[in-house]
């Protein structure tokens, strides 16, 4: 297992635990994620991923253990955590009845950016995503793939230290899915840490490191090549199926 990456950790998790009544959803997980790393957080449905993410973004108090995200404690400094991260879920956080421009302005305002900064960001976003002619189109009228890229760009509008992506590519066509990952790489290269979940196992191979969660615990953690070597598997899909099946049988 590769537990500690070099450099300053953007995410530090130590024995993080969450119980609901007698059920332990997240059972003492520990790991670090380095600044600028693309970290894949994998697990079967019900393994505890969503509960873990809700703790890491400051929405759910841990029952035990600790976690620091972007330098802040998720239990005692939840507000600072929220201000220093971006979040994009499977179902978009964009307002469908607002135009592209209005969405960007609204989120810029929520993140506390100045009007000047919002204008600057808008210009660079429009360039990068080629959104010029759609700037005044309502979001519900733009193609799904663009919506996805826009949702991501809005999630990193305030230049957060860490961005959480919860199944960002579900249902997207294969070309857009790949364009989306290039956006992820570009963002990570500029120093933002990317924490991503996915059910597409080929995407797990695009991550610098991946963890696999089974029944509330992290049972595997490493680079995709390390995990494939460790489990003598050809793909991460094979590693995942083996570990998750073993968990289901338990």
């Amino acid at each position: 297992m590769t537990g500690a990456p070099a450099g300053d950790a953007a995410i530090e998790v130590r024995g993080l635990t969450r119980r609901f009544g007698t059920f332990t959803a997240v059972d003492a997980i520990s790991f670090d994620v380095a600044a600028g790393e693309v970290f894949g957080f994998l697990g079967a449905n019900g393994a505890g991923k969503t509960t873990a993410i809700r703790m890491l973004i400051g929405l759910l108090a841990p029952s035990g253990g600790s976690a620091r995200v972007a330098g802040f404690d998720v239990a005692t400094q939840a507000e600072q955590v929220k201000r220093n991260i971006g979040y994009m879920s499977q179902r978009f956080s964009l307002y469908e009845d607002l135009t592209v421009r209005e969405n960007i302005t609204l989120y810029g305002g929520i993140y506390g950016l100045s009007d000047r900064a919002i204008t600057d960001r808008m210009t660079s976003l429009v360039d990068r995503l080629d959104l010029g002619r759609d700037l005044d189109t309502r979001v519900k009228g733009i193609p799904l793939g663009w919506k996805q890229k826009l949702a991501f760009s809005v999630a990193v509008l305030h230049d957060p230290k860490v961005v959480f992506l919860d199944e960002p590519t579900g249902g997207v066509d294969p070309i857009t899915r790949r364009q989306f990952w290039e956006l992820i790489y570009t963002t990570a290269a500029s120093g933002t840490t990317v924490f991503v979940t996915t059910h597409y196992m080929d995407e797990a191979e695009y991550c610098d490191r991946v963890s696999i969660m089974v029944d509330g615990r992290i049972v595997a953690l490493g680079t995709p090549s390390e995990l494939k070597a460790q489990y003598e598997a050809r793909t991460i899909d094979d590693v995942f199926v083996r570990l998750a099946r073993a968990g289901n049988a338990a």
Partner: protein
Amino acid sequence: MTPPGPAVSVSAIGKRFGDVVALHDVTFDVRAGELFGLIGPDGAGKTTLFRLLTTVQLPDTGSARVLGLDVVKEFRAIRSRIGYMPGRFSLYADLSVEENLRFFASVFGTTLEAGQQLIAPIYSQIAPFADRRAGALSGGMKQKLALCCALVHRPELLLLDEPTTGVDAVSRREFWDLLETLRADGLTIVASTPYMDEAVRCERVALIQHGRILDIADPRRIGSRFRHPLLAVRSAERMRLLRTLRGLPDAHSVYPFGDAVHFADARADRDAQAIAPELRRELQRQGIADADVSPIEPGIEDVFMELMLGTSAEAA
């Protein structure tokens, strides 16, 4: 029983919603006893197609027959003979597993006991949770219950709209195993999915994008539709590899695929075996010393992207 002839026959169907063309001139047949896949991303028109086949919506143009019956004129007869699992979880969250099953059985004028034999292999996996509220089941369990509810009246045709979306890789495999069991028992199944890797579980698949069928083929033979030499290239420096490959004069398409990058050569007449050593040398010359190049057979995702580029300016 299923009449002779195709279980589903769709002929030049068109459907618009305002300015949006949801389906354009869609034509295909599903043979009786076949496991047929509709493969395409969100917004391709898969759900609209299911709504027409289940007689919930009417086509604007063209015609469709389900189990030999016309979807417009004979919709009542169709409804009792098909099983439909919509894309959204549509069971009663406040009813228990068993109550949901009994409810759906009674709606179709039958009983849980009468449908028991068909659903037994699936129901046995959720039986331990018979008293649990459906809303409290895990994702994989919900799918299995929804499948049981779609089967409880012993339909002749099963229509499944994205049954595995949002479901993890293990539960997805288990779900397709169940579908193969049902097909082996003679049930005709039409299932849609955005996951290309699930296509190989079908006997034939229709690839759909922007309301049009791009191709219909046996998923095991679909690779032959790809007309360019294809090579898998690996390097530790993935982004640099991508950029370098895209800059090559003979690049037709360059896409990441898991731990590799797929490079399609524009020279359709060249042999991938012959290109491999040349490509390796060129990458090394451009500073990618660890480049590993090997010819590969195109898969369904390679073909799908190739067809997308051929039909849609937007994707380019």
